[in-house]
């Protein structure tokens, strides 16, 4: 569409578009309300109509076929605006690249352009109650029924399930082989009979995740993504795209970096007292240092992505450091507030903010990879240290003990 357009002209077009469509940006974007999803769909649709969606996607899938340089120019122009596409990120950042790489032509034709237009919202259904860090041990079964499949099981931690049209489902199609070898990936119609979605309430009181129950859900044979029993490889593709997409954003679950924990705490300290306390000053300075280092790591990741280099260990480091900062900042916030952080007037926004931050910290640390898993990755893939002796590599899944946990 715009392949002859110069980078400068493109940049001007983006700038003009944002100036004109500013009303579409900046809406509520907590990613949970259906309202936010409507905003996201409308924004994405307008972007598509302007030829600004899927900049680096191939033209055949509805994309623009442009270069990474164009994407970066777009990102720079978008920086001043709150881009409300959060609810679409899993679909566009993880599911679509998987379909592009492994989907059938029919799947690509049917879904990709619609995702790009914001007409289809997608989610990802991998994790299960019994398969958290060890996703490959999942138990949801897909059994052949003629050309079709019948799926039974339960998924969990599914962001956006409640407003998604489709999802990438990982299910076990052969329990008689080791766990990685008997999985298959499917496109799941989230409105199919037998799909029940229940929001999962978190410590904070919010419900960013869902449980999805699958009871005799019929999935057509042409919904298999990639090959039957080769679903683990497909899932790795999806998760790699997740990592790139999180990494480029700077780690930490789409957490906006330099989000100003220090600035907020310094302001709080100035207002409620605390800047005169040398011990609290140490804590404040530590938060500044952690935050600055996280920004610098994130810059490094963006520079790597920009230069076409595979990001180094900074992604995992940023994830861990981000979770640590979030908890540390919340603790410092509560210490600044003092005893009033244990009980407060509903109008005390400081206490509300920092107690919520404290309550959100464990989820921040666990979701998207526990510290243990992240450190395994750093130890094994970055430092090259040997893996644990595998006790489950060569065992048929059927004989494997999985999940559990009684407390």
């Amino acid at each position: 569409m715009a392949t002859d357009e110069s980078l400068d002209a493109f940049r001007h077009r983006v700038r003009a578009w944002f100036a004109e469509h500013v009303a579409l940006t900046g809406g509520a974007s907590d990613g949970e309300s259906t309202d936010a999803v409507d905003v996201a769909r409308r924004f994405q649709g307008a972007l598509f109509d302007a030829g600004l969606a899927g900049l680096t996607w191939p033209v055949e899938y509805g994309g623009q076929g442009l270069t990474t340089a164009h994407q970066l120019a777009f990102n720079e122009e978008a920086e001043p605006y709150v881009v409300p596409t959060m609810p679409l990120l899993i679909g566009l950042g993880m599911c679509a690249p998987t379909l592009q790489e492994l989907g059938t032509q029919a799947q690509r034709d049917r879904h990709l352009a619609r995702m790009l237009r914001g007409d289809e919202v997608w989610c990802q259904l991998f994790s299960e109650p019994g398969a958290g860090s060890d996703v490959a041990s999942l138990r949801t079964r897909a059994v052949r029924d003629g050309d079709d499949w019948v799926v039974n099981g339960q998924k969990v931690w599914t962001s956006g399930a409640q407003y998604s049209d489709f999802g990438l489902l990982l299910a076990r199609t052969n329990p008689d082989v080791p766990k990685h070898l008997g999985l298959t990936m499917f496109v799941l119609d989230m409105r199919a009979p037998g799909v029940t979605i229940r929001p999962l309430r978190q410590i904070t009181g919010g419900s960013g995740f869902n449980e999805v129950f699958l009871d005799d859900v019929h999935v057509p044979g042409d919904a298999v993504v990639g090959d039957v029993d080769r679903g683990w490889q497909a899932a790795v593709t999806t998760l790699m795209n997740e990592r790139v997409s999180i990494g480029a954003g700077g780690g930490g679950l789409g957490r906006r970096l330099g989000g100003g924990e220090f600035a907020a705490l310094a302001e709080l300290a100035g207002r409620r007292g605390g800047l005169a306390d040398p011990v609290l000053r140490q804590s404040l300075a530590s938060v500044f240092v952690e935050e600055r280092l996280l920004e610098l790591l994130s810059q490094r990741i963006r520079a790597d992505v920009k230069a076409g280099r595979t990001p180094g260990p900074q992604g995992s480091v940023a994830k861990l450091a981000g979770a640590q900062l979030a908890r540390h900042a919340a603790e410092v916030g509560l210490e600044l507030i003092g005893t009033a952080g244990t009980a407060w007037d509903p109008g005390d926004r400081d206490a509300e903010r920092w107690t919520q931050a404290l309550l959100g910290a464990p989820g921040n640390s666990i979701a998207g990879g526990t510290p243990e898993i992240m450190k395994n990755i750093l130890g094994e893939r970055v430092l090259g240290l040997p893996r644990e002796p595998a006790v489950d590599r060569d065992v048929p899944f059927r004989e494997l003990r999985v999940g559990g946990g009684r407390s």
Partner: protein
Amino acid sequence: MSAAVVSSAEDLAALRRSVRAFLADAVPEAEVRRLAETRTGFDPAVWARLAGELGLTGLVVPEEFGGSGAGFAALGVVLEEAGRALLPAPLFSTVVLGVHALLLSGDVAAQADHLPEIAAGRLRVAVGGLGTGPRARAIAGTRGWLLEGTVDGVLDGATADLLLVFADAEGGAGLFAVPSSAAGLSRTPLRTLDLTRRQARVELHATPAALVGAVGDGGRVSAALLDRALAALAAESVGGAQRVLEMAVEYAGTRYQFGRAIGSFQAVKHRCADMLIDVERMRVAAEAALGAVDAAAPDLPVAARVAASFCGEAYFAAAASGIQVHGGIGFTWEHPAHLYYRRAKSAELLFGSPAEHREALLRQLGH
């Protein structure tokens, strides 16, 4: 069992068993959650049984006032169990703060008025002005004392039958008793981090109050009461941390990932070991502080600050670690882990931050 004779290790063990059995039966987790959603936050029927069947409201009330005359060793056992079960009841406010404020005041008349009622389970007491927040003023009027001002963060302040408030009078600080029916008294429940322990803002406008003890003695009483509160809170925290550790160990031993119980992975195993190390240290810290109260040891303020500064941080660290061991399920609302996480952070800050406790400790040591 009656708490009448609680002195030997065997007595304490029996007391522990009976309290634990009672709480497991009367206030299981589902009931804790239910009460967290109610207006008052506790169940008067359970309170009556705690007072009657178990004799806990009279546990540390001297025998001449109708109690069992037990010491902090026994009180510590009860609080440890209450902390373990996250018992939502005005036990800490009434039995730790209320009873000991009266005992420390030396005001025999006030003791005779209130302690038998407390022991009988008919009077719940809250204490205000113990912490570092704004304090009320006491003005000597023609018809007695009037209190003026706002006191924040009063434990169980909205539901207590009697408020004991440390306030500043012209001759120094004093302790004042305010019945819940007093004129000019208003009490507002606050939002709390800990869903299982209520706090209130108490506003006093020309509120008539009875002096307990002497004006000018309030500083001594509140300092001594604070030491006892810190020791008691440490004991309660030991119970909570121990429970958090047990839940983590049980989960780690029965949750399988990668073909192994996750507790066989050193990362999880050592996390549990670190929790154990902290719980063991919390335990000796709390017991030393409780023992110092019972022994009337001059070392009590030191022991209390050691316990407070260590147990506050260690309990929260254990609660946070417990969530990590549980992974995703640990940060859901349905799992009890967050109830302890909330309780732990609240306990850490309730009577001052760990840093404040450390500073106070150094002063106590003469530096």
